[in-house]
């Protein structure tokens, strides 16, 4: 115990994990940004599909959203990386699989954010747009979407933070992001305590500033 306490002050792991964190975080961020970017495109399409009057389009979107939201992202990643690639004979590398998994997963949650955002805009806006002769697509594009998007920013920011943390599960498909690298570090050094504390900090230096920025944007949007 005493030995463990002194380790807190003298551990070499603080310094030694830094290169792993730097390298791993890079990949973590690449997967998160690219994944959420494509997730936003998917989410916009399926979110608008959920508002469609066509039962078929609505149905397809609902199935996608509920399938994704009803299964753990760990299972989705395993399915994509091992099952899909095996069945179709496509060989994804872990990075591609990770990006696709985040895109599909975040896409479903973002679809609900998009639907909520568009639904929150007063019906009178659509009517006013239509009444000056704009088509429903034009009204969506020039009037509804810009207003809805503003309201989507806070939940989109939250989703970004959630997806960033979700990338840690890609350690199971050997994607060399920060969690994976730290596990390797621990298995070679045999010393888990400080390295995993450092891993927590690795996430926190991204998520805490992100939350602070988000809260600031939220406050500004309120006015």
């Amino acid at each position, binding site marked *: 115990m005493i030995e463990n306490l002194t380790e807190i002050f003298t551990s070499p792991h603080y310094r030694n994990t830094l290169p792993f964190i730097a390298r791993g975080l890079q990949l973590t961020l690449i997967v998160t940004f690219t994944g959420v970017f494509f997730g936003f495109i998917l989410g916009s399409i399926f979110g608008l599909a959920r508002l469609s009057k066509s039962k078929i389009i609505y149905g397809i979107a609902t199935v996608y959203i509920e399938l994704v939201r009803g299964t753990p992202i760990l299972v989705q990643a395993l399915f994509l990386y091992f099952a899909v690639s095996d069945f179709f004979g496509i060989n994804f590398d872990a990075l591609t699989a990770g990006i696709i998994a985040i895109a599909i997963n975040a896409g479903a949650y973002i679809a609900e954010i998009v639907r909520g955002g568009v639904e929150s805009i007063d019906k009178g806006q659509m*009517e006013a747009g239509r009444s*000056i*002769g704009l088509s429903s697509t034009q009204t969506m594009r020039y*009037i509804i979407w810009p207003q809805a998007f503003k309201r989507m920013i806070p939940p989109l920011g939250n989703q970004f933070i959630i997806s960033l943390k979700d990338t840690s599960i890609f350690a199971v498909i050997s994607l060399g992001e920060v969690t994976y690298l730290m596990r390797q570090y621990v298995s070679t050094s045999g010393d888990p305590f400080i390295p995993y504390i450092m891993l927590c900090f690795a996430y926190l230096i991204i998520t805490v500033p992100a939350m602070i920025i988000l809260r600031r944007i939220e406050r500004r949007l309120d006015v």
Partner: protein
Amino acid sequence: MIKVTDLHKSFGKVEVLKGIDAEINEKEVVCVIGPSGSGKSTFLRCINLLEEITAGDIVIDGESLTDPTIDINKLRSQVGMVFQHFNLFPHMTVLKNVTLGPLKVKDLSNEEAEKLSLDLLGKVGLSDKAHVYPGSLSGGQKQRVAIARALAMSPKVMLFDEPTSALDPELVGDVLEAMKDLAKEGMTMVVVTHEMGFAREMGDRVLFMDEGVVMEEGSPENIFDNPQHPRTQEFLSKIL
């Protein structure tokens, strides 16, 4: 110019309009009065196809609104609508609110659209507000912007859905002035209103609606001074 024949409108099982016949002539100002829930607003919204017509027909300038091949967007661009709650676009400046239609529907150039819009904003007395956002305007100013926005499409007819009902009393006057100017220029107007003063002064004809039908119609003098139908008498005795 507008001919309404046996117009019915139901929301689910509730029949709101139970057979309306009406005719609105060019350059005429027709005021629609009646108690809440009488179907006045629904009637007006049917003319713009904001509500689907359940049965019957509306013909505007020879074009039937129930004709499935009709270009709804083109029709709507010729029928201006002013809403009770203004429905300005809050993320655009006042000027952009007005230029949007001319730019995207009439395909005017930027300069043409801006010139037209500034003229119209001048007409409703809001030239100095062109570059502010609707959020900083009073209700009366907002409604005048909404009028300018509708006029920017050079509509053949203007529909007003209780344009002053959401306004503070002291702001009603400016909006009514703008509407009077419009009427004097010969705009065809259908006005759903609780402003009996406006109906009496500017209306060429007044329709009294109740329970989904037009109960009585006539000149403002006849309706206000000599109502025939007991429901009209009852309604007017309550509000005058």
